[in-house]
């Protein structure tokens, strides 16, 4: 049985001129959407286009302000998550909603536990769970605690849970954002399987390649409105992007400035020899801005990491999720303590016991999770920009220098083109891209020598991405050493002067210039040809 569109033209779910407002903004306006039974509908759009809001409304998390939702051509009111579930709509959040202290089975039946004589019927839970888990191809014991599973498997549990309540519409919000390639592929298979069973899937993703392979139909949103629909052959990267941004864009960012000097000697190294730190003592004329020798990151105690970054160089760090890249940056920044090894900054050996030490020696880190680690999200742009440089610029050691604070903030807003009504705007109300720029502004106010970026463009829209790339170039041209971790292959290829590839805590190789290609990176990242 293939896609059932043709046989059954009646839509399962229909949304008519839906609208929603939030303080200060119109999130959705006159949205129309149809979903056929057994169809995979991809929903794409830049950040802030209103995709998540629309899905939250369908799942009963938020009420709409206007418009109609029809299921089986009958208007329905979805006032709560329970309502949505009764109607067969289930949302799988970007951040999973599992109680990770409970077992897999307990999670699947959370809130509707089968009982026997008033007590929870454990046997039935185990039995039934096994069946549901099998339908998503997951072979785990229902009594396993959820926190012992990988993120990918937890996601499968969520899907199994949705199937167990006979969901007819499954909404997946960025399901692959924290999955490895292999986990993602397993997920795609499950999605195909769901389609066979007549379950409709609304699939939200920033990863357009996934959408191309997975979707029967693509609905594009822009600024809270419908921005077109693509079916069958029309579904391709360029078509989606041009509708998302409302104009034609080139396929990917291309660097215009390349000033980075690569360390001498390593430039000739054939790809993937693993001898990264070779000959740094004599061969280089300039001192590396950052030199890491035999660093042992606590999360991967078996491996030693060595590399260097020259001033003005952009070094990309590629690898699969879980390759230990974030852990390495955290260790470099003093968040965790290395078990061994040496770090030199501008040739001087430094001890980094805390982020404070790292900052004092000229480093800045744009962390992976900007909401938790990068920003105090309920504070103003001004407070966030000044947070790291506050004590340096304080008068008499402790008095806040309000004038410098204002100047730095204005400077950041101008230089990074942060779109904010005022410097006192609460950062929470900015879009993702602008939030990320505030994090960058915080470090620029410090005048760092070395910038560590961890997934700097995750979850931000294409326009803001380009601005961040341009900024990276400019900063490198000014002599900053930039080390950036990214899971987006195109980004690494386009931006790096040199690319380090990591696999399970180890640097499996480095690529320079033209060697930097998708295939080479994948080989090293999967540990295939590292030796």
């Amino acid at each position, binding site marked *: 049985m293939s896609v059932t569109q043709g046989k059954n033209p009646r839509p399962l779910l229909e949304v008519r001129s839906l609208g929603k*407002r*939030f*303080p*200060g*903004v*119109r*999130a*959705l306006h006159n949205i129309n959407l149809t979903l056929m039974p057994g169809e995979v509908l991809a929903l794409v759009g830049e*950040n*802030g*286009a*209103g*995709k*998540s*809001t629309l899905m939250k409304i369908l799942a009963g998390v938020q009420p709409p302000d206007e418009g109609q939702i029809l299921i089986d051509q009958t208007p329905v009111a979805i006032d709560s998550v329970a309502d949505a579930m009764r109607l067969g709509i289930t949302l799988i959040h970007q951040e999973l909603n599992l109680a990770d202290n409970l077992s897999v089975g307990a999670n699947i039946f959370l809130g509707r536990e089968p009982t026997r004589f008033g007590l929870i019927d454990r046997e039935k839970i185990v039995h039934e769970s096994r069946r549901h888990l099998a339908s998503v191809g997951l072979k785990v014991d229902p009594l396993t605690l959820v926190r012992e599973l990988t993120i990918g498997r937890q996601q499968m549990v969520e899907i199994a849970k949705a199937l167990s309540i006979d969901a007819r519409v499954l909404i997946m919000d960025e399901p692959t954002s924290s999955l490895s390639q292999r986990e993602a592929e397993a997920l795609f298979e499950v999605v195909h399987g769901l389609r066979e069973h007549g379950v409709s899937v609304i699939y939200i993703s920033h990863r357009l390649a996934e959408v191309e392979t997975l979707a029967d139909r693509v609905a594009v949103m822009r*600024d*809270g409105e419908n921005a077109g629909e693509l079916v069958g052959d029309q579904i391709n990267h360029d078509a989606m992007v041009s509708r998302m941004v409302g104009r034609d864009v080139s396929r990917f960012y291309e660097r215009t400035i390349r000033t980075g000097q690569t360390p001498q000697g390593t430039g000739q190294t054939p790809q993937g020899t693993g001898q990264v730190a070779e000959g740094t003592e004599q061969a280089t004329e300039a001192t590396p801005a950052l030199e890491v020798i035999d660093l042992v990151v606590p999360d991967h105690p078996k491996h030693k990491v060595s590399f260097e970054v020259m001033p003005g160089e952009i070094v990309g760090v590629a690898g699969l999720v879980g390759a230990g890249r974030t852990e390495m940056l955290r260790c470099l*920044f003093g*968040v965790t303590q290395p078990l061994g090894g040496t770090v030199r900054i501008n040739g001087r050996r430094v001890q980094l016991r*805390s*982020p*404070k030490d*790292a*900052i*004092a020696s000229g480093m800045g*880190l744009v*962390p992976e999770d900007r909401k*938790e*680690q*990068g*920003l*105090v*999200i*309920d*504070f103003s742009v001004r*407070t966030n920009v000044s*947070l*790291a440089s*506050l*004590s340096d610029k*304080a008068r008499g050691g*402790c*008095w*806040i220098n309000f004038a410098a604070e204002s100047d730095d903030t204005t400077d950041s807003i101008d230089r990074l083109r942060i*779109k*904010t*009504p005022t410097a006192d705007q609460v950062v929470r*109300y*900015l*879009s*993702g891209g*602008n939030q990320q720029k505030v994090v960058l502004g*915080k470090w620029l106010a410090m005048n760092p020598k070395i910038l560590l970026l961890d997934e700097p463009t995750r*979850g931000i829209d294409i326009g803001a991405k380009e601005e961040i790339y341009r900024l990276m170039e400019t900063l490198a041209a000014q002599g900053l050493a930039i080390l950036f971790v990214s899971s987006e292959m195109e980004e690494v290829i386009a931006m790096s002067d040199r690319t380090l590839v990591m696999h399970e805590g180890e640097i499996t190789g480095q690529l320079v210039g033209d060697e930097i290609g998708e295939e080479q990176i994948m080989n090293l990242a999967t540990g295939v040809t590292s030796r």
Partner: protein
Amino acid sequence: MNKILGIFGLLIFVCLFTTVLNDSFVGQYNLYNTTRWSALFGILSIGVAFVIITGGIDLSIGSVVGLVACLLPMLVVGNGYSPTSAVIIVLLISAAIGLLHGLLITRLDLQPFVVTLCGLLFYRGFARWLTDDDTLGFGQDHDGLRLLAIGKPCSWATMLLGGGVCLFLYGLWKLRRLRSEADSDDSHHDAKKISAWSIPLIGVLLAVAGASRFFLGWDSGPGTSLIEVGGYRIRSLGIEVSDAGAAMPSTVMKYVGTFLFVPTLVVFLRWAWQSDSRRIKKPSALVLVSLVLLALCVWQLVPLYRSAGGDDRWQVGAIIVSGEMLKNTLMMIVFVVVGGVIGSVGWLISAAGTASKKSKALTPALVATGVMALLGQTQLAATMVPMPMLIMIALAVVAAIFLNRTVYGRYLLALGRNEEAARYSGINTKRMIVVAYVLCSLAAGLGGILFALDVNSVQPSGFGNFYELYAIAAAVLGGCSLRGGEGNILGVVIGAAVMRVLYNAINILGISTKLEFAIIGMVILAGAIVDVVVKRIVAKRAVLAAEGVDTEPPVGAD
């Protein structure tokens, strides 16, 4: 700012309500006591505010107060330590307690609730064991030390004079800053000018009112002892004025305040009306209605309330009402009406503030003149200032400067809201948290000293019980969020005053003291509910205001 206005409105509401029903509330004796107790609790609240700002909690305050209050007389009376060294020792002990709490919380990652709960139990038990549950006190000796708590350094009129001069100087400084940036073309320059000019003017008014105490002539008397440290006595200047002179500041405030309040109000409303009449139509109508109601109440019901004795019987239609019931009923009516007036005036002020920037800039002047007019009706200016009040004001000023002007204060706020981001920004978060707990326990220690000196009869088993809850309630009323990262000192001080005034009102109105906790709980709950409701209304209004405006970046989506 709005939060402070809100809690200040609540303070005025409780004061007005109590005064309307029993005017001995604003008599000198009661004012002196209420301000003294407010100050003592204010000291504890300022301390706990720092801990709450970091997102923590300190439940041990009451027990620290009890322990310190036992240790001080033990050291001074029992072991013959000099008062100065005894005070230093107990302060060091309380700092050590805070340090211990902070280290346990940051180094061992224990939860603040658990650590300080154990503290609450331990210090109480330790104090009882140490003293063998004997009541302690300083007896008739050590008056020099006791002056710290019971000294009366000056009258409130003198405080007005001093405060007025300070405000005036601060205002001048702000004016100079405004001049220096005047050339930049700024659309809100008018509003800035208004707020910059109003501050020194308010200062002058307060200073004049305070100084009017001396208008009818003064004599120099012997003065009284203020404090005694190591044999040195500091004495007050001993300026004495006649009773008529002492009453002058109130008279000046009453007339000047009232005469300035009315035109200020007119201008305030005019500006708001001109820029957006739609916004203030409803609240001003409500203010009018509630004022008429209030006049009716004062004219008809208040005399009835005062004349009704508990045993009287009143025939209302077919029902016979006892004096007690009548009193309660009347009180409730007055309660609702006064609440309506305060609420609608508050609504009007905030609506006008959003309608016009110029009106908003005038708010401090409006509030100041209004408060002056009200204060003029009381005997506050002739009342003496309790020493703890001076200590509390000094502490509050230092705390406010620390919190708002130093990097450490900023660090506390930032780490309270997001500790991880603060750490990633190079802040030594653990050390700052320890600092917060040390400050809190130090304040509790200082409070304990003053409480012990004030009461002079310390029962180890019960002294300071529940004080931590009063302090926490005051901090929360004053705008500190238990989630951390939010709070301001002025609000906390006003919050402490509200708690005390409520307690005082219960006593003075003859409400059963058994209801004390119930009433305080209700008022705090009401405050929290109003806070949430107002926030929702503001958010809703923002949605309506944003309708059709597409310039702002998307919010909340994705």
